[in-house]
């Protein structure tokens, strides 16, 4: 007599609705779509920059279309969400031990946030935002 085989049911396209943490995982995964698409925009921008001043002005003008504004707004949210979840994960991914003790996790993540904000401010300063 054979036992009933174990069948683990896992719907391949809807599994992440089962648990909030799966949904959070997937919402983070989705940010890669926007980052990937934004990379295409950056490469196109480089091509326009290499093509001369008129082409670059045209690119800047094209950025101002409503579709582009919506797209970049979504990219901004996705990029910030990716950054925040990445920095939150650093304390698990790179635990730091000094002597006997481990450095508290929120110190590690906090240091990443601090460097991130500082770097962003420096880039904005050199880009002439303020």
């Amino acid at each position, binding site marked *: 007599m054979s036992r009933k085989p174990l069948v683990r049911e896992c719907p*391949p*396209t809807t599994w*992440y609705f089962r648990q909030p943490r799966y949904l959070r995982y*997937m919402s983070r*995964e*989705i940010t*890669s*779509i926007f*980052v*990937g698409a*934004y*990379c*295409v*925009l*950056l*490469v196109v*921008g*480089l*091509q326009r*920059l*290499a093509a001369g*001043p008129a082409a*670059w*002005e045209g690119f*800047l003008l094209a*950025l*101002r279309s409503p579709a*582009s*504004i919506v797209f*970049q*707004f979504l*990219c*901004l949210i996705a*990029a*910030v969400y*990716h*950054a925040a979840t*990445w*920095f939150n994960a650093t304390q698990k991914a790179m635990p730091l031990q000094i002597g006997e003790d481990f450095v508290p996790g929120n110190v590690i993540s906090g240091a*990443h946030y601090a*460097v*991130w904000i500082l*770097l*962003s401010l420096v*880039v*904005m300063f*050199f*880009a*002439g*935002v303020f």
Partner: protein
Amino acid sequence: MAKSHKPVVWFPFAAGGTVIAFCIPVIVLLTFLAALGHVPAGLSYEKLHAFAAGGIGKLVLFGVIALSAWSSAHRLRCTCYDFGLRADTLVATVLYVAAIVGSIAAALFLLRI
């Protein structure tokens, strides 16, 4: 010891994740400001062209774009699988080729500046 090609994929992925986290939000913010009509001075043709003309500028721009492209390609591959698209070899080939082509294109455009 067993040899694996995974580190080759994994290293740019991890480096790209870090680069995306630290650099992409502020870059998006700059182009978003330009999209809203407040073009930052650094995005004017003269300033940006001068930055991209230098060796360090070229290296920074290429590093950010190539690593971000490779990392998001790898993550998109996982995302496709998670959404139930199980043709992994096809998805991986298309996305990695796209990332490599994008990186080479970025390098060629940078060399023209």
